[in-house]
């Protein structure tokens, strides 16, 4: 079968199926059959490590958002919602939130578009393409710190990018890429996409390979152009790959901290200060409770942004 059924779609998404009762269980056979015993204790190691080394410290930490924990004194007292109130009344939180959301959207967009374009370009298994694939994966492997250093060097007013532009334009170019209060956020998002597009490319490559050649042949015989073949057959079938890429892009927010910190440190004039950096700065001033409050807010923002997006993309997969 070349057309996708809900089974294949579910399989493709690599995601948890809808909870029981909503749709038929694919591949489960008759429900009256005895299920193989999966022992409960199989859950223990994972849950134990997760709880002890992640959930407990994190929840513990979030509780501090409701206290006055700081580096200045030893005692800690609960203060209710005071931190949230004062945080919301300062303009910085909202400004940084805006920056964070814009940044996340830009990154998700660029990473996916570049990744897809690269995958399409390097689809055939020629020697050149295979070599190019490895090369484009290099930025993915490099640490964000290293990427930060490299681009700092490249984007200085007297740096490499400007000298190339100068050679092309015929007159010296001294644009300060990382000091533009309007556009630097865009450039940093591009740098972030540059680092991770190799991974998106890989996922899309894999996705392209799973597309059944028969359907494409049939379309070609019917006279469809390359463009039409792409948009009407291949792109929809790439839906699961797209979900994966968008999900990892949006949920990889910790990675963005490294790159922004290494290139601009939140500047110029705090126009690239994503919430993580603000948290880092507040933490550095010794205001631990306030920083924790911001973490809590960031958490809510991510949840609000990420889950509906993923849900939408999943639904699209199933529909397509």
């Amino acid at each position: 079968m070349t057309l996708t059924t809900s089974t294949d779609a579910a399989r493709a998404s690599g995601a948890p199926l809808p909870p029981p009762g909503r749709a038929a269980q694919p591949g489960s056979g008759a429900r009256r059959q005895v299920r193989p015993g999966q022992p409960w204790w199989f859950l223990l190691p994972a849950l134990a490590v997760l709880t002890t080394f992640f959930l407990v410290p994190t929840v513990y930490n979030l509780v501090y958002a409701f206290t006055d924990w700081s580096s200045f004194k030893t005692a800690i007292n609960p203060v209710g919602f005071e931190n949230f109130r004062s945080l919301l009344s300062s303009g910085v939180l909202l400004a940084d939130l805006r920056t964070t959301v814009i940044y996340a959207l830009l990154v998700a967009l660029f990473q996916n578009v570049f990744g897809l374009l690269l995958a399409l370009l390097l689809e055939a298994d020629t020697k050149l393409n295979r070599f190019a694939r490895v090369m484009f994966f290099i930025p993915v492997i490099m640490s964000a710190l290293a990427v930060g250093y490299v681009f700092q060097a490249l984007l200085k007013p007297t740096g490499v990018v400007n000298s190339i532009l100068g050679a092309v334009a015929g007159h010296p170019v001294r644009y300060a890429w990382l000091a533009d209060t309007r556009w630097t956020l865009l450039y940093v998002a591009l740098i972030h996409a540059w680092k991770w597009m190799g991974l998106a490319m890989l996922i899309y490559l894999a996705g392209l390979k799973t597309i059944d050649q028969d359907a494409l042949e049939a379309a070609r015989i019917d006279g469809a152009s390359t463009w039409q073949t792409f948009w009407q057959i291949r792109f929809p079938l790439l839906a699961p790959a797209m979900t994966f890429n968008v999900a990892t892009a949006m949920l990889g927010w910790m990675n963005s901290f490294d790159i922004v910190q290494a290139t601009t440190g939140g500047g110029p004039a705090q126009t690239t200060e994503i919430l993580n950096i603000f948290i880092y700065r507040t933490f550095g001033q010794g205001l631990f409770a306030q920083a924790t409050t911001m973490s809590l807010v960031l958490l809510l923002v991510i949840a609000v942004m990420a889950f509906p997006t993923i849900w939408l993309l999943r639904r699209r997969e199933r529909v397509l």
Partner: protein
Amino acid sequence: MRKRLGATAAVVASLVASLVLAACSNPSSGSGDSGKSGPAGWPKETAKLNGTTLTIWAAQNSNTVAKKVISDFQAATGAKVHVVTIPDPYEQGVQTKVASGDKPDLAFWQPTASELTSLNATTNLQTLDGAPWIAKFQPALRNITGLLNGKRYAALISSPAVEGVYYNKQVFAKYGITSLPKNLDELLADARQIKAKGGTPFYEMGGDKWATQWWVQVQLADAAKNGLWDRVNANKEKFTDATILNAIKKYKALVDEGLFNKNITSATFVDQGKALLAGDAAMVMQVNSFFGELQASASTDELNQKIGFFPISPSGNVGTFIPDQSNAVVAFKTGDSKRETAARQFLSYWLGSEYPKYLAAQNTVSLETGVASPSTVPDALKSVAAAVPTSVGSMQALAVANPDLYLNLANMLAGTMSPQKVASTTQAQFAQLAKAIGAPGYK
């Protein structure tokens, strides 16, 4: 099956619950803090310490300062001393590590009251009162910094940084400036003279940002002498009031007048050093670490020839001192009385018999009356050190908290904040910090 699952869930839930319930206790106390056992006074400098290992935390720009002292100390006492570099931002890294219970034996730390508070000195640091080297210090420098609430926590190991003007002697000569300005007005007159003749009077590093605050602080020197920061500390005066706000506005006006470098918003610390050495700009308002950067790229002879220093304030040649992290060392209460005593011994050694060798190795000015500065110390540094006794405290030195004034000023230079907004944002930050510190007047 249900029961087993129930058991798993119960275990998980109770784990979470018990730790959440314990949330009201401070996480960083109770992890090996010293109680009643304190260090045993001030031991002999070269007492044997075989088997003791001391850890010193240093920043990127201070991790080689104690090199000679350490190797000599290790040879003399048999102790092992290990320097760990905490990457920038240094203060933040240290604070976070300390909050998570990780403490060194010694660390470089800014000896101002506000920074000592942010390290929770009363709980975390040893007091250094009664140390044998205090009497050796020049009288004017003994109590200038390192104290909090009357107790001494930090040992000064080099001349506190002073905010002032570093100038290029050749550029001054080129533009016909034959005598050094004696107050702020004369300084600006000289600057305008340079500009009129086509030169760049001042060079500022709006890109790296942290030096932007010197311009404002230097203008506040007279007010600081008259208790400005005491009033701010008590919430009797704000950043948005005339004194500080006007200083900010004047800085902006000077930049708008064209007295600074054109690439002010993207210029870096390194650019600043290069520009002054090359004569692209006449003057830079900076602190000691700037000169350290110059020393890394030019010889002492060249620096003596080209670079000079003079302090400046609205009414005279008064510097504003701002001790920084590389100027002082603190000793931690680790709970191990043997190591605590050894840490004190290390300080005594450093500022005692080892002092002359240390000065020679670091080529820095002496702070002790009995010990002469090496003759190879560059002239500019000598001028800086000479300015210390008469200098006035900076915001960092006198205010109870340390807001990010430099960040807001850099935003102003980039055009995204008005002087009014700089003042109000800094004030809000200051109030928040003061409140967290528990300063009276800010409850």
